[in-house]
């Protein structure tokens, strides 16, 4: 398996990840160069299987200013939702770009749901003051992926490396050189050299086992960026969606509440009226998730016997049978298939569930990292338009906008560059780390049990509500887990060795979990999705700033950077 010389492939632009962000970037890179650039998309899955297919409810954009919507309103809702931690220049740029992206996808074939007059339909989504979530039934991400994937096959010069697992980013003198990867079908270790690169590896939601995410959403890309010297930003902010379906956490989209579904406690009370009198069940996600945990902790929840999980009821009866069957067909199907409940007849058991990570690879407003020639986009990146709490329907949108920006930027940069040179020593060190260290590694600890322990501690101490004690304990445990001998591979085969990938993923999870916990422990305030029991108030004087986590030989180091405020001054949020 370990060759003397590691094969080198060469491309102009190397994109890691084929979710909405990666595919949008690939099309743009090809498009701005008229197909002249040679674009590689490297992805650990078959390209169209990416986690993005799971997005359901909507993509936000201002399409109908004549009916009262405005860019300013979209920007303000986003900033307010972010609990003022978003960078407002980025938000303004984002909302301006979005309408064009909706039309672009439509022109590439996306079957957006339509109004009677044949124009694109929109609906309400939590935290917005106008119904601007553009939707295609309840399969928004699926159709975005289908459209981008199908369209990408039409553009010249896009080469897919499917089921190639990227292990590291190669740099030289602060400049991007390429990535290393394992070709899963053959087991060979390869360097893919490029003049420019884009990391679009998605979010890190699988730090939790009760998660809406696909199993593949592990923080590989974030960990490789950290190792390459790029900080992660605002990782302590993790969104817990109010409604994960017991038992596994499959998402029951907010659109259910947008269409009229209501949350109810054990006493049959619509409790949201006590927490958010104006917006009720459609208040922003952090507000709803906290209200639910408070209801549960104060004894007004139900308990699931099989899993031991506490939950509340999501009652769909106000929506009406017909609408449930037509507009929410996927949710109905999921509830029947995974819980045996027809939501037209009975309420659904739900509880807060890990759903989105606001933080990510630190990038500027163009999506550029600190390494020249390397960008990051989508959920893997943190621009930040989401701040301390993202609004639903804004993240697929962000993937589109920064997929487009970074694709164009990377293409322009690559067009002006000579052929990439290899960085032999780094490649050899990486090969040793993986093959001597893990593939031929020895150890007695089951890596899958390390993953389980990690997920348990995240669910216990790094959830909706946090305390100094819990977080300190979590940090201790995680550092202990890292010393266990789990870096070994039982599967000795070269072909399609998922065991090796899994160990690499678990290693990344431990690194990134430590960043999350350290950031959360340091941030002695409550803001957006980060709720400290011991510091219940937002503290703008000390904490209106982004967390930056650096990784070095001496471990983790935290630093902070400024939040950009243009026109929306921080005030207290009311929903």
């Amino acid at each position, binding site marked *: 398996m370990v060759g003397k010389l590691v094969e080198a492939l060469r491309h102009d632009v190397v994109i890691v990840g084929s979710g909405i962000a990666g595919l949008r970037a690939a099309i743009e890179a090809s498009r701005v160069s008229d197909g002249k650039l040679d674009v590689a998309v490297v992805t650990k899955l*078959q390209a169209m299987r*990416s986690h993005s297919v799971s997005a359901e409810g909507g993509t936000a954009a201002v399409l109908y200013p004549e009916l009262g919507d405005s860019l300013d309103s979209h920007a303000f809702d986003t900033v307010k939702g972010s609990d003022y931690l978003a960078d407002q220049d980025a938000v303004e740029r984002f909302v301006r770009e979005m309408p064009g992206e909706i039309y672009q996808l439509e022109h590439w074939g996306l079957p957006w749901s339509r109004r009677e007059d044949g124009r694109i339909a929109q609906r309400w989504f939590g935290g917005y003051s106008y119904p601007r979530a553009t939707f295609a039934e309840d399969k928004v991400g*699926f159709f975005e992926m289908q459209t981008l994937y199908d369209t990408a096959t039409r553009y010249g010069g896009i080469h897919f490396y499917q089921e190639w697992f990227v292990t590291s980013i190669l740099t030289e003198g602060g400049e991007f050189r390429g990535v290393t990867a394992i070709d899963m079908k053959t087991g060979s270790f390869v360097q893919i050299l490029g003049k420019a690169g884009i990391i679009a590896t998605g979010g890190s939601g699988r730090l939790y086992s009760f998660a809406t995410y*696909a199993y593949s959403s592990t923080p590989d890309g974030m960990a490789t960026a950290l190792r390459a010297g790029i900080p992660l930003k605002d990782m302590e902010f993790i969104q817990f969606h109010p409604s994960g379906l017991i038992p596994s956490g*499959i998402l029951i989209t907010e659109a259910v509440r947008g269409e009229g579904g209501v949350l109810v406690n054990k006493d049959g009370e619509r409790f949201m009226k006590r927490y958010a009198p104006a917006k009720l069940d459609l208040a922003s996600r952090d507000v709803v998730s906290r209200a639910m945990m408070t209801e549960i902790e104060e004894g007004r929840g139900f308990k699931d016997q099989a899993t031991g999980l506490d939950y509340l009821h999501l009652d769909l009866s106000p929506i009406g049978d017909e609408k449930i069957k037509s507009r929410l067909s996927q949710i109905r199907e999921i509830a029947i*298939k995974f819980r045996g409940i027809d939501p037209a007849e009975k309420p659904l058991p739900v509880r807060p569930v890990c759903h989105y990570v606001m933080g990510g690879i630190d990038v500027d407003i163009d999506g550029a990292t600190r390494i020249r020639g390397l960008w990051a986009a989508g959920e893997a990146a943190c621009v930040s338009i989401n701040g301390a709490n993202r609004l639903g329907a804004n993240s697929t949108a962000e993937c589109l906008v920064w997929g487009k920006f970074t694709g164009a930027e990377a293409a322009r940069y690559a067009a002006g560059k000579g052929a990439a040179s290899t960085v032999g020593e780094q490649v050899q060190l990486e090969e040793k780390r993986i093959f001597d260290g893990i593939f031929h590694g020895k150890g007695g600890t089951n890596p899958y049990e390390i993953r389980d322990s990690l997920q348990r501690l995240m669910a216990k101490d790094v959830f909706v509500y946090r305390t100094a004690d819990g977080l300190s304990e979590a940090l201790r445990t995680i550092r202990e887990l890292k010393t266990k001998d789990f870096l070994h591979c039982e599967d000795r*085969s070269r072909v399609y060795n998922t065991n090796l990938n899994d160990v690499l993923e678990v290693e990344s999870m431990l690194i990134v979990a430590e960043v999350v916990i350290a950031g959360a422990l340091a941030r002695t305030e409550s803001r957006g999705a980060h709720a400290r029991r011991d510091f219940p108030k937002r503290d703008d004087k000390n904490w209106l700033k982004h967390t930056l986590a650096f990784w070095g030989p001496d471990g983790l180091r935290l630093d902070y950077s400024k939040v950009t405020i243009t026109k929306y001054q921080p005030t207290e949020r009311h929903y």
Partner: protein
Amino acid sequence: MTDVRLLVQRFDPFKDEEPRLVEYKVPKREGMTVLDAILYARDYVDHSIALRFSCRQASCGSCGMKINGRPRLACYTQVDELAGEKVVAQPMENFAIIRDLVTDLGSFFEKHAEVVPQLVRSDLQEQEHPTSEYVMKPEELTRVLQFTYCIKCGLCTSSCPTVATDSEFPGPQALAQAYRYTADVRDEGGDGRIAILDTPHGIWRCHFAGSCSYVCPKGVDPALGIQLLKRHVMSGHAPRKAGEGSPTAKAGIPAHGPGSGSSSGG
């Protein structure tokens, strides 16, 4: 707590002459899917079982395999819904095996790409630099909708007797997608697609076994799509009438697989 008797077909091309079934005991829990059962075996019994999976909610199309003899998605099949006391997981038919449950879908994706699965327009400037949307009435959308639900899982193609005997036949997935784009009111590429598919190895090779529509987990009816493409060729009219008299129903074959209809979808 009872155990599930899980049999997984194992095959490593570097080590094994022949595929073999290996049995694993998996503790059963309420609501367990076949994917849950295999992952239990992989995580705690034998780390070397190779399979594809990602979303675990029937949206990504990764986990197609043959379960107790029938093509299904592992994440979308409850252990309890299977008859008999064993769960037998094998790779899909009609595709080469890479290892264990993992099959080679390379040519499957290529065939999809060959039917021009994009909106083809003559107004390229507008298509690439949109000023607003192309108008599409809800009823026009409804006509193509079921065909847009395809998650490229390969189950239909794995069940198709024609694919098994003619390697040049595009297969039900690709043909259904040719229909999906051709029947879209916004599309102008129908003639181009028909030119590719109106051949002896193309649509005319389908002799309507109907198994594709029966096994599809997303309620797509590829057999219907192929019939409508044929009708389009014979009539010389744009195939925009999927709502009218379904030939599938006329032929006495169930128009949809189980779990389809209005409750299905991606």
